[in-house]
């Protein structure tokens, strides 16, 4: 039985690539069982932050702690951290069915967990379909299922809707909400799609090398804040009850 992480603490985190400062003194804490979005312009350090939180990069200052434990241990020994990449590099011309993908890549596919993950994500009917024939949304569901089968407690999703249509997008966010509500997972999303993200998350982290703000999206995210964060390149405006990216 895997232990459950109660808090995620990022403390005085800094990262430099050579002489270039990518992240400066980032500090925040997140509660278990929430959906958090990290937003910010290109080059803000979002992916670097996530890589450090996953234990794939070592910070040059400060650290990340999961109930006081470092990411390397939580990821490696405890196997609690999961990841859904933005671009899945699988060769789509390769003959491999969805079921074969899981059977061949999952370490110890627990029978019950395997079936539950597939049925919850609507993948049962796709079991015999070749991977190359899956849509962008179906690929995202498959990658999320992989993390569920492995029993990952904290799942990071990098731009989860960047390669899919609007219909697929709403399905992916419905699954993300299920990850929190049904599977009791902690979800951390990197996204550029501010409008959609803000509707679906509990906490937003606004990042641009330094931490601009963190909190409930409806309380902290304003047009002015977005413009400041994106150096005037983006903003929120409302008309007819809808909110759009400018």
């Amino acid at each position: 039985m895997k232990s459950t992480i109660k808090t995620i603490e990022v403390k005085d985190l800094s990262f430099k690539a050579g002489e270039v400062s990518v992240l400066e003194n980032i500090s925040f804490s997140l509660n278990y069982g929430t959906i958090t979005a990290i937003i910010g312009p290109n080059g803000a350090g979002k992916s670097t932050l996530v890589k450090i939180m996953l234990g794939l990069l070592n910070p040059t200052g400060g650290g990340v702690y999961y109930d006081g434990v470092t990411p390397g241990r939580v990821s490696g020994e405890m196997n609690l951290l999961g990841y859904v990449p933005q671009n899945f590099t699988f060769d789509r011309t390769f003959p491999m069915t969805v079921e074969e993908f899981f059977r061949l890549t999952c370490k110890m596919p627990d029978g019950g967990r395997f079936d539950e993950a597939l049925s919850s994500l609507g993948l049962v009917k796709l079991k015999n379909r070749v991977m190359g024939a899956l849509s962008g949304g179906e690929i995202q569901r498959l990658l999320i299922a992989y993390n569920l089968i492995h029993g990952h407690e904290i799942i990071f999703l990098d731009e989860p809707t960047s390669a899919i249509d609007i219909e697929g997008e709403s399905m992916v966010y419905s699954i993300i909400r299920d990850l929190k509500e049904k599977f009791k997972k902690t979800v951390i999303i990197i996204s550029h799609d501010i409008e959609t993200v803000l509707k679906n998350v509990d906490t937003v982290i606004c990042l641009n090398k330094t931490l601009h703000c963190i909190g409930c999206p409806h309380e902290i995210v304003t047009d002015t804040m977005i413009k400041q964060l994106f150096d005037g390149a983006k903003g929120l405006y409302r008309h007819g009850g809808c909110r759009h990216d400018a």
Partner: protein
Amino acid sequence: MLEALLAKLSILAMPFAVKALLCGVLIGAVCSLFGIFVTLNKMAFFSESVSHASLTGIAIALFLGFDPSVFLIFFSAGMAAVIALVSQSSIASKDSIIGIVHSATIAAGIILLGLLRGGMTDISRFLFGDIYALRTVDIYICAGLFVFSMTYLYAFWKTHLTICVAPEFAVIEGIPVKSYDFMLMIAIALVIAVAVKIVGAILVTALLVIPPNAAKNVAGTFSGFRSLSIIFGTLCSAAGVVLSVFLDLPAGPSIIVVNAAAYFATLFMRGVN
């Protein structure tokens, strides 16, 4: 006509032909399985580089008076280790280092062979293969490679596949991807070192690349792909040997021509479907 056919069939029962068939089938099976990873990881250029580098290995062996077959095993593994370590250290890109090693070893091989007198007779066997001149030690090497390959693939099949199919997940799961890539490159180099004796340094990459790609053309599942790859690898090797006996053709190129025919046949089938 019938007498000529019977005479050819009797040749197939001769010890040298039996050895050739046995080794051809064993190496065909091994290459078709490792070829799956060569195809998935896009390692054809690496294979080409290691196989062509064997020219230098053979020249050094002849120069120093070692058995080329045995020396080549260590030399190829060493070459693969150099390529893997340099490319993984980020000093140079993998593609560049393979290209440089590829050209440099061929050039060094030609220079060394130029310094050798009477070495060209031996080198032609390694360039184009000489499956009919296999000695007892070569049979043991082929059998040893087969046992090693099956053991290696049984132990690491799933891990290598995870790295090939979902490298992002492999990193997160804590799999030491670089170490496994290093091991795979060494293993493929060992396969190449032995297969050079069968089809020659120039053609050995085809033995790794064609069976999985022919299988890929017609397979609908991964298990089908793997099975078909082995079937193509073994049957084409055997058919190549038989063809060479019946038509008095060189065996190595015959094996590759049969493989290529199988590939184009499956490509046609894929186009039709």
